[in-house]
């Protein structure tokens, strides 16, 4: 052998193959887009709560997508205790973060506090609260692209404030979160398309082991 094969690299490649389907990217893209359009609900007198609840829809789509699209094509795998521990830690940190920050998140989203929050509440809330969650996800789930998504979300704060002078409220939020959301969504759909082509669904399990 030219060099000993790195077991760590094999494990990392196997782990990262489970999210080359683009489903998580589609999730983040849709969350960005929903957050972008929530302020616009005020224009049509729809409570923002419905917008926040809409975020559950892409989360549900991830759950369904993994079971109906990814696993039948890629195969199921159970990783070792280290990965399971990291995933559990991630879920605990995210749950605690949202639980502790949800009231603040909602108030900021409604413009409570005035100033920048009055016309850029959603991007500020997303940038300050959701961004750390995405960074944590990128670290614990070993997915480097999430750091880029976190940076895009953080950048929406100054961008939204800048855009306010040109397009006003609520379109400053729509643009500052909507454009990156659309880019991420398109990237996710591209990954999904490639995944479906690379891993066609088998009609029946093909193996002769144990026969």
């Amino acid at each position: 052998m030219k060099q000993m094969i790195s077991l760590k690299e094999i494990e990392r490649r196997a782990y990262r193959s489970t999210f080359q389907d683009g489903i998580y990217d589609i999730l983040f893209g849709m969350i960005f887009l929903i957050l972008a359009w929530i302020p616009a609900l005020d224009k049509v007198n729809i409570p923002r709560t419905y917008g926040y609840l809409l975020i559950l829809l892409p989360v549900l789509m991830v759950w369904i997508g993994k079971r109906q699209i990814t696993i039948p094509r890629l195969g199921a795998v159970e990783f070792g205790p280290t990965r399971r521990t990291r995933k559990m830690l991630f879920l605990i940190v995210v749950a605690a973060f949202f639980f502790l920050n949800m009231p603040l998140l909602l108030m900021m989203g409604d413009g409570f506090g005035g100033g920048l929050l009055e016309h850029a509440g959603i991007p500020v809330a997303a940038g300050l609260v959701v961004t750390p969650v995405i960074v944590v996800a990128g670290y614990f789930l070993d997915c480097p692209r999430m750091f880029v998504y976190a940076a895009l979300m953080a950048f929406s704060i100054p961008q939204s404030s800048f855009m306010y002078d040109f397009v006003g409220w609520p379109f400053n939020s729509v643009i500052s979160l909507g454009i990156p959301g659309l880019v991420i969504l398109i990237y996710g759909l591209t990954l999904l398309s490639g995944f479906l082509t690379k891993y066609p669904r088998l009609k029946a399990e093909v193996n002769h082991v144990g026969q």
Partner: protein
Amino acid sequence: MSVSNEPGGYQLTELDRIIHEPARYNIMALLYVVKRAEFLFVQNQTGLTPGNLSTHVSKLEGADCVVIEKTFVGKVPRTFLSLSERGREAFEDYREKMKVLFTTPPGAQSPPGSA
């Protein structure tokens, strides 16, 4: 592994020869780093054809290195592969031997760290 004092006199055991084959080594390396994996996942990761993978897995099962678990998820049959305890030990032992082999200068009488 029995090690002779002749230069290059390493002798692999029969189990080592089973693991030594590149495709089987890749299969065992993948199963070593996960708890268990579906046949399809192993096939995708190793790039082997289903028939080829079946043949190698059967050989590993025959050597008591791999455990094959056939189950149903709903009405869909699924085959899961995992390393047995013996398989893990054999794989670790094989890797250790290869490290010694590659770090011992040619012609050395007593490889460092060998029994």
